[in-house]
């Protein structure tokens, strides 16, 4: 088991995408002037979501409306909604955070990271583990419930200064650009099916890995700079950002097994549960809970949990899944 885990972790660490992330992190740490222009990074993020959504849609169409799809979707919704309540309690107990910042941080840990999902699915493809294309839809489903849960938490705990429900917030939560591209591409993939994939084969296939590498180079830069500018993080918070993904992944794996999801689906469910949002959740929290400290929740999700999942978590969750599935 340990040998297999070591080999898997080694293979993961030598994947180009992970090495580009490390390059970005080192460049940021050394204060290099390397930067990915803002609009390029945003375009890359949209491109990755288009690919993930489109390929997921094509594959979901091929497999049809299966019980696994419904089970995975329901599980994803439940995990995303329930996680912030537990994360909030842990953050208050171990991180010594104020209520509003704890609620906002909890939203990040209930919501999901698209790039962690992309890295997880690429890892599974590289080692030949199959998973359902509908997992892209599960990814989309898991973005929002955590944000709603965080608003409930903040609203029910003494009416925190934030929690202002306004049209801007709902537009941001349900119609943010990332969500529209992801869900829209999924639907387009499902409609156009295989002929569509053949026409976009180069764009959504061969070019994807290169774009992921470039995006992760930027993420490495952002993560290291974010961590360097995070003086408020205490050991309790850093411990939370490292232990929460493990617990969350374990819970997702146990639930996936109980629902008879496949090994690949369970592994990706664990990756999703362990990941923390840094696109959808921060945007929503800035509007809904403006008094929450963005320096805390962004530093934790981007500076600690994202690198942990990318470097160690993804192969670890799959190894645990293999052990559980025998």
């Amino acid at each position, binding site marked *: 088991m340990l040998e297999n885990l070591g080999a898997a972790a080694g293979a993961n660490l030598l994947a180009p995408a992970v090495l580009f992330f490390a390059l970005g992190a080192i460049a940021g740490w050394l204060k290099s002037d390397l930067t990915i222009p803002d609009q390029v*990074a945003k375009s890359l993020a949209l491109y990755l979501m288009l690919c993930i959504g489109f390929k997921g849609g094509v594959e979901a169409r091929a497999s049809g409306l299966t019980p696994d799809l419904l089970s995975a979707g329901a599980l994803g919704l439940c995990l995303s909604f329930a996680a912030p309540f537990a994360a909030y309690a842990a953050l208050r107990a171990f991180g010594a955070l104020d209520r509003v910042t704890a609620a906002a941080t909890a939203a990040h840990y209930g919501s999901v990271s698209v790039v962690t999902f992309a890295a997880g699915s690429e890892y599974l493809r590289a080692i030949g583990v199959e998973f359902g294309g509908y997992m892209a839809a599960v990814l989309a489903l898991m973005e929002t419930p955590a944000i709603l849960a965080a608003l409930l938490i903040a609203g029910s705990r003494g009416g925190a200064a934030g929690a202002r429900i306004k049209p801007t917030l709902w537009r*941001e939560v349900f119609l943010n650009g990332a969500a529209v591209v992801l869900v829209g591409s999924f639907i387009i993939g499902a409609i156009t099916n295989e002929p569509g994939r053949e026409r976009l084969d180069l764009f959504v296939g061969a070019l994807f890995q290169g774009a992921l590498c470039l995006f992760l180079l930027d993420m490495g830069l952002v993560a290291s700079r974010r961590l360097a500018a995070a003086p408020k993080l205490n050991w309790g918070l850093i411990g939370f950002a490292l232990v929460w993904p493990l617990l969350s992944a374990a819970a997702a794996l146990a639930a996936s097994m109980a629902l008879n999801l496949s090994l690949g689906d369970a592994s990706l469910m664990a990756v999703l549960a362990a990941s923390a949002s840094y696109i959808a959740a921060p945007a929503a929290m800035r509007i809904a809970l403006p008094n929450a400290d963005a320096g805390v929740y*962004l530093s934790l999700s981007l500076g600690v949990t994202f690198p942990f999942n990318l470097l160690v978590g993804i192969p670890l969750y799959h190894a645990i899944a293999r052990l559980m599935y025998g």
Partner: protein
Amino acid sequence: MDLVTRTKLEIFVEAHAVNDLERMLTRVGFKGCSVFEGVEGAGSHGAWRQTGVDEAGMRLIITIGSEASARAALTWLEDYFKSYPGVVAVSEVKVLRAERF
């Protein structure tokens, strides 16, 4: 040269507030504004960076109008800044073609 005195507001707000702010400025009598992206800096909420993935970024809105409009806008902003981060600076400026402001 026919220069006329007007009031200029320079407002830094988060990106999500720009639409609300533009509507407010129109409502209180400003005839236009300029919105700048790509501004970076630091303040009491930490660094403002245009990092692409994790930052919605700040926007700089510059508008010029009458003193009465500026006062109305400042009242709105005073309330807004009780909850959200941002900065506003007020100054007197000389403009040509006063009817445009």
